[in-house]
């Protein structure tokens, strides 16, 4: 990717790294958004979010292998995730409604294991390839117009994440269900007292988290293959949440961008001193420094419970 013999080369390269990082970061934002939605609606840290990413994209690939066309497989998977949200609400969350948040936390950890196991039992354990028809190589017209090498896959991921985030934000701001969700997020008891059915709102957030998981899984799976490692990749949402605050949607977005950009910059400029591959743990180190500086996160309002 490095081109030499140009006065601006070094600077351009830096910009490339940052842009690639920001674009990759949108995916972290997206997954973190899934966490935030569930956290806001039920004050529960959903440890199953990583497993949901894996489950969703593996199911999607599985449906494609069964011969379903792309679009149909996509919507069938979304339906499946909505169904999963419904089952989770009915079988796990509702019976535990009056239990402590710790109990709910345990339940989501359990749910995570169930999803991982279920996905592998149904679709097998081998790594699948997912071809979205978008290559991981630079786009010519961007090179021509700016001199920057930006990967088509990165750019697509960034655009898709942006569209999804804006779409969700509009739903939350302007629809009745969105108003209900924001009300529940502020005070579930008061929301219930005016007749907002908490169960429906839970179904909404779990479905939204499912869609977000599927999209993130597709983007990541297209690059690195659909495999179990996606669960760990999704866990990078944790440092994102520490930076952005557990209950803030803008926080999730900005946090994802910060983690994305800084891990790429560190990987490229600092990585060589550590023998490379610091992308895996750098975000967690950044998060720790953030914790020391602002434990409630950039946009968070109250200090989170230690989980």
């Amino acid at each position, binding site marked *: 990717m490095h081109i030499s013999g140009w006065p601006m080369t070094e600077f351009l390269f830096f910009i490339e790294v940052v842009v690639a990082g920001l674009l990759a970061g949108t995916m972290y934002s997206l997954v973190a958004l899934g966490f935030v939605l569930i956290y806001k609606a039920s004050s529960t840290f959903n440890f199953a979010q990583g497993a949901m990413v894996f489950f969703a994209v593996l199911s999607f690939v599985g449906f494609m292998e069964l011969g379903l066309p792309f679009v149909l497989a996509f919507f069938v998977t979304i339906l499946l995730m909505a169904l999963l949200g419904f089952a989770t609400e009915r079988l796990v969350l509702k019976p535990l409604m009056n239990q402590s948040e710790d109990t709910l936390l345990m339940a989501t950890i359990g749910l995570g294991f169930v999803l991982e196991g279920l996905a592998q039992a149904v679709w097998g354990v081998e790594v699948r390839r997912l071809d979205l028809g978008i290559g991981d190589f630079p786009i010519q017209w961007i090179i021509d117009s700016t001199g920057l090498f930006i990967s088509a896959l990165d750019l697509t991921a960034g655009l898709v994440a942006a569209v999804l985030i804006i779409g969700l934000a509009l739903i939350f701001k302007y629809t*009745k269900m969105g*108003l209900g969700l*924001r009300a529940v997020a502020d005070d579930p008891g*008061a929301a219930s*007292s*005016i007749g907002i059915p908490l169960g429906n709102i839970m179904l909404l957030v779990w479905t939204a988290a499912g869609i977000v998981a599927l999209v993130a899984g597709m983007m990541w799976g297209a690059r690195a293959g659909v495999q179990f490692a996606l669960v760990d990749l999704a866990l990078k949402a944790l440092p994102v949440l520490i930076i952005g605050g557990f209950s803030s949607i803008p926080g999730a977005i900005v946090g994802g961008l910060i983690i994305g950009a800084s891990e790429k910059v560190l990987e490229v400029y600092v990585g060589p001193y550590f023998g490379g591959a610091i992308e895996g743990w750098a975000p967690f180190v950044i998060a720790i420094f953030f914790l020391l500086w602002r434990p409630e996160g950039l946009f968070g309002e109250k200090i989170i419970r230690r989980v």
Partner: protein
Amino acid sequence: MAPLKGLFDVRPSCGTPNRPAANTAIFMTTETDNILEIDTIEVIYDSVIAALHDVSLTVPRGKIVALLGGNGAGKSTTLKAVSTMLKGERGKVTKGTITYDGAAVKNQDPADMVGLGLVQVLEGRRCFGHLTVEENIIAGAYSRKLSRADIRNELEKIYSYFNRLKDRRKSQAGFTSGGEQQMVAVARAMMAKPKMLLLDEPSMGLAPQLVAEIFNIVNELNQNEGVSILLAEQNTNVALRNADYGYIIETGHVMLHGTAESLLNDEKVKELYLGISKEGRKNFRDVLREESTDHADLHHS
């Protein structure tokens, strides 16, 4: 015998005033139109903590009934038993019955009760802090299927009662004053078009002037919209001045009930609840033990 006032006016055939509460409730069922009848309910939290032992009370349609008592007396528990909000707090009605608008309250959830026209305004205001004042109020219409135009009309109607909120409608509710937040909570509940409101300590932590303003609005809503009101209050004086009838409870028992006027003029109520006593505050049980005089229009349980 002193003439019966207040609530007793609407059921002139209501027998002897010294009739015990439970019997009175049953009697009233047959004679008049009560929107709410609570008959000797016991409520237990966490399967062990008894919060109510034998509470009975009646709210005639279109009236304001005050439920009075100190901290931990069981006022909020009574209201939550009616709105079924108890379930969310591991509480359960273990004995007795609740009849709202002619139907037994049993397995409904709070959303069902709102659908039936019964809305509780929880203690401590409980606004949605991040939502604007107007979004808070609109959220109150969640249970209703309204078009955008309908919502605007309803909003205008609500604002005609809560003038103050109209100016603040774009403000984030979390940043408004305590009085405004209490108004938001009541306005939000009214947006559900209730037949009956359960108000839990609307005066809590507010300056007397604001308390008066809020009670004025509550009275207007009662008069103009015909909403029946069960009002839990520690502020005995204000509550009785705005109510038709009152019940005083202590540790989960109804100690005394009567028309608002009779309670306001009762020596023991004055002494114990209106702060007109020279001695320190005792509770009802002790006073009753000391002397048991008969009151013409008061009922000891």
